[in-house]
């Protein structure tokens, strides 16, 4: 069977599974549509939340980010998992006790202000829509590369599948599909990693192999890798090079942002009890950790494999020849990926060899001059292809490649569905039912939820096909907004009775505006190129990059809310009672029906 048929088989079988689940889990009420009837077991919910959370960025991009930077990008590993500690301790159980359907609804009720609710809805919509564009692009790339069809048709097929289970099944359909998607994506991620870890270290557990011995040389793997990359003028893999303060702030921003992303928080509304919400956050992290503990091993091992392929005789010997790349079947993956435009090389000095090294490094100048090199000849290596190309680089069997294709699609689709659900509940429940037509019946609200979901899918496809040039930067925006506006408002709503309506709105706006302005100052106003006044290499405040500003925005939000609240009227008694009741699990069943 050829590779194309294998890919088609794996992707087709996984899609058939999702559709089957959609038919089985059809939502009949708003409670099922928004919160899966609050009947989801904490382990099941944990698995679904893990799939919801792990997007194309976790599956496709993260290992590449670590591979080409090394230790400094550990922020992604700690940040994207540490947020679950905040979620489990500070938000999930209380929001489950509150017992409503959306994040904005809690903010609106707790701060007795429809303005607060609307600010939350706007943050939620901006964060979710920017996030969904990235998922749709991921779907397009995966289809284009593995099924060799146009991104347009790929996106359309993907959208139809999401439509089938998200529009009809709501949260119920999405939850059970996400369980299946988690199984597909984690198998697809770990199987190639296990193979590669066995090849390189003889250890079947990649997370242990990372700290094991390199089978070829007997040296520890990381030491071997450090030696290879420093020989070529790159930064030592395991060493710290960036600014320590910025690294800490960036990690903190990712943690707070994770805990404030509405499509993740709303998953904890689906479990039956408050204590289940606590357990469920733990199970979510177990399922996320399976991938996140593997990712740094995938990154380091891929970097080692690629470097050794480019220097088959060692870094002091001769580089790989153009002829070998063209003829040796082990190098076939390079030609395949060259076609996508994400990988390229050029024999600049015409010596028939491709020298891969860091031409910006001072130490390499001497060797380059002596050997007649005219710059790095592996001219383009997009870090996003690392995970997808990994099985081919390591020469694994064809079915593994088909599995990785299905896994990448599962990661993108499961996150897209979760985001679309957050968007549609904000529109139908917060905007329509909450503001414009409060007397809407349940069946018309359900219809409105389905129509707004369908509309959101159409918008996502259009934006996915014509992604705004700034799509990559907007992910920073989504995290910044969640960190600076949503997380502090939720936390203060639970932990302080003193914060009143005026304080909360002032805090949210202050956090939101300072974060937006700081990102725009560095990335360009509304992301228009060349309108930026600062760069992330030379930022406005000390060493704080725009991607790390979310934590500062959150601090501004906390401070502003506290100051304004202490100068304005005290919170009314019934709100204090509400906060008290949210703090104790007793009577959680009572709050469900409303």
């Amino acid at each position, binding site marked *: 069977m050829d590779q194309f048929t294998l890919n088609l088989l794996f992707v087709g079988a996984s899609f058939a599974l999702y559709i089957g689940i959609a038919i089985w889990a059809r939502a009949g009420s708003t409670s099922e549509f928004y919160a899966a009837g609050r009947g989801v077991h904490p382990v099941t919910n944990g698995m679904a939340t893990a799939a919801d959370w792990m997007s194309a960025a976790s599956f496709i991009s993260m290992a590449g980010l670590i591979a080409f930077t090394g230790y400094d990008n550990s922020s992604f590993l700690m940040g994207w998992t540490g947020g679950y500690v905040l979620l489990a301790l500070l938000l999930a159980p209380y929001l489950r006790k509150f017992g409503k359907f959306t994040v904005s609804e809690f903010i609106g009720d707790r701060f007795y202000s429809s303005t607060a609710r609307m600010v939350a809805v706007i943050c939620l919509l901006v964060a979710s829509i920017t996030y969904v564009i990235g998922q749709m692009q991921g779907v397009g790339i995966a289809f284009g590369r593995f099924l060799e069809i146009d991104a347009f048709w790929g996106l359309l097929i993907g959208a139809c599948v999401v439509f089938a289970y998200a529009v009809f099944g709501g949260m119920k359909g999405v939850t059970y599909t996400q369980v299946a998607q988690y199984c597909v994506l984690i198998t697809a991620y770990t199987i190639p990693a296990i193979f590669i870890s066995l090849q390189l270290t003889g250890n079947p557990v990649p997370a242990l192999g990372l700290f094991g011995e390199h089978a070829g040389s007997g040296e520890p793997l990381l030491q071997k890798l450090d030696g290879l990359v420093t020989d070529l003028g790159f930064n030592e893999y395991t060493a710290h090079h960036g600014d320590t303060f910025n690294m800490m702030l960036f990690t903190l921003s990712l943690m707070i942002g994770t805990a404030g992303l509405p499509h993740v928080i709303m998953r904890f509304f689906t479990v039956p009890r408050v204590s289940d919400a606590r*357990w469920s956050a733990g199970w979510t992290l177990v399922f996320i950790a399976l991938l996140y503990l593997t990712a740094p091993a995938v990154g380091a091992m891929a970097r080692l494999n690629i470097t050794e392929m480019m220097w088959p005789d060692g870094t002091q010997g001769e580089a790989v020849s153009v002829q070998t790349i063209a003829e040796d079947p082990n190098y076939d993956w390079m030609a395949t990926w060259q076609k996508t435009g994400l990988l390229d090389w050029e024999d600049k000095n015409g010596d028939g060899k491709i020298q891969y090294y860091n031409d910006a490094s001072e130490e390499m100048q001497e060797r380059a001059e002596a050997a007649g090199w005219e710059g790095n000849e592996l001219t383009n290596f997009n870090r996003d292809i690392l995970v997808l190309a990994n099985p081919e680089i390591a020469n694994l069997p064809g079915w593994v490649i088909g599995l990785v294709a299905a896994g990448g699609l599962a990661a993108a689709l499961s996150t897209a569905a979760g985001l679309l659900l957050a968007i549609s509940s904000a529109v139908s429940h917060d905007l329509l039912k909450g503001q414009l037509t409060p007397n809407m019946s349940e069946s018309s609200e359900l219809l409105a939820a389905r129509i707004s979901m369908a509309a959101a899918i159409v918008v996502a496809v259009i934006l996915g096909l014509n992604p705004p040039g700034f799509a990559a930067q907007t992910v920073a925006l989504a995290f910044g907004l969640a960190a600076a506006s949503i997380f502090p408002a939720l936390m203060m709503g639970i932990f302080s009775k003193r914060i009143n309506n005026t304080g909360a709105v002032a805090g949210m706006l202050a956090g939101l505006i300072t974060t937006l302005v700081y990102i725009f100052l560095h990335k360009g106003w509304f992301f228009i190129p060349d309108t930026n006044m600062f760069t992330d290499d030379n930022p406005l405040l000390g060493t704080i990059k725009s991607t790390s500003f979310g934590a500062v925005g959150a601090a501004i939000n906390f401070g502003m809310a506290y100051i304004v609240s202490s100068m304005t009227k005290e919170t009314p008694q019934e709100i204090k009672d509400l906060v008290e009741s949210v703090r*104790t699990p007793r009577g959680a069943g009572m709050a469900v029906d409303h």
Partner: protein
Amino acid sequence: MTDQTDRVHSVTKEDTAYWSANLRLIILSLVIWALVSFGFGILLRPMLSGIEIGGSDLGFWFAQQGSILVFLVIIFFYAWRMNQIDRQHGVEED
């Protein structure tokens, strides 16, 4: 214990004790959370560089693997301990 169906909640001494027990547990958990990630993983890494682990040092291990494992322990410990505290203070669910 108060009536389960009583929606209006008045603050009792028991509730205050329950909430401060919860706050103490949260603060303890967050201190460990910060220590393993921001501490061992980043800020204190130079101090731990003497402890070697498979080709690198303890700080590198905490940044790439250790902190995630500790986060897991924190969440499960918190869930287990809070369920105990709920029962001790009589505020558990039915």
